């Protein structure tokens, strides 16, 4: 049963990969990477049970944290053009709103 689950996740990963390669817009790519990270977390969880070592779940949780930070960094880069845009207090979004 774990095999079936892991293969379903692998198929989903392949679909994410297709979207990351073809994705017409940047948001498709960002979303595919974020979703790919989620699939990795799921795959690690399933692999832990498949290989009889459920302690892998802890690692999967840490991956979820890393994935979150990476996605935030990517989105921030895309919004401000670089990663230290917030340091100026120069917020394009706020400027547009005013």
């Amino acid at each position: 049963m774990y095999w079936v689950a892991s293969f379903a996740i692998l198929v989903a990963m392949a679909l994410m990969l297709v979207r990351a390669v073809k994705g017409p817009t940047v948001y498709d790519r960002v979303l595919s990477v974020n979703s790919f990270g989620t699939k990795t977390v799921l795959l690690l969880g399933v692999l832990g049970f498949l290989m009889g070592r459920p302690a892998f779940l802890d690692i999967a949780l840490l991956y979820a944290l890393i994935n979150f930070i990476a996605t935030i960094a990517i989105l921030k880069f895309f919004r401000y053009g670089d990663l230290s845009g917030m340091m100026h207090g120069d917020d394009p979004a706020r400027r547009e709103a005013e």
Partner: protein
Amino acid sequence: MMLAAAASAEVGSEVTPSTPEVVGFTGAFAVELCLLALLAATAVAMIRMRRLFGVAMLSGIYSLLSAAFFVALDAVDVAFTEAAVGAGMSTVLLLSGIALTAKVEMPVSRTRTIAPLIIVGVTAAALVYATIDMPGFGDANAPANAYVGRAYIEQTPSDIEVPNVVTAVLASYRGFDTFGETVVVFTAGLACLLLLGAGAIRGGGRNDDGEH
């Protein structure tokens, strides 16, 4: 990342995976094959893609895939380093580099790709040739598992009392070594920050807010 790879290779050579499995077409083996196929597909897509933002995204996917592959091979510490450095840090560094340089890779003429292709092919052939002499996965008589590795496995439960042998080796038996590595990684991170992050250069050629 090279440092992490070296450290993990060092660890991997002396710590045995728990149980040697019977070589055969098990479910875990099939999952590993699928992961390797996805890795190869990602690598080809990265080579063919010209828009560098997409390449950075694909490199993040590549790191996540190889991390999952390392976990499938029982190398959990390597996998975690790969996920933190590869998917987390290096994607951000690549994006910072893109912000400072160009968004699209220039096309390369066919003739200039021949020599690198030959070099890479020869290196890959040498590496594959080197794997022929290696002992089997989880072989108890392999040199890596025989001497100090066996001692670690036997003494860790009584010496250190943590369930994971890799953790015991990294954090206790070789605590100073790990400390030195951490300092090196920290220094490298500081250097990257100085080069890319909080300096005067901003992406797009804008140098400051007009104060100077």
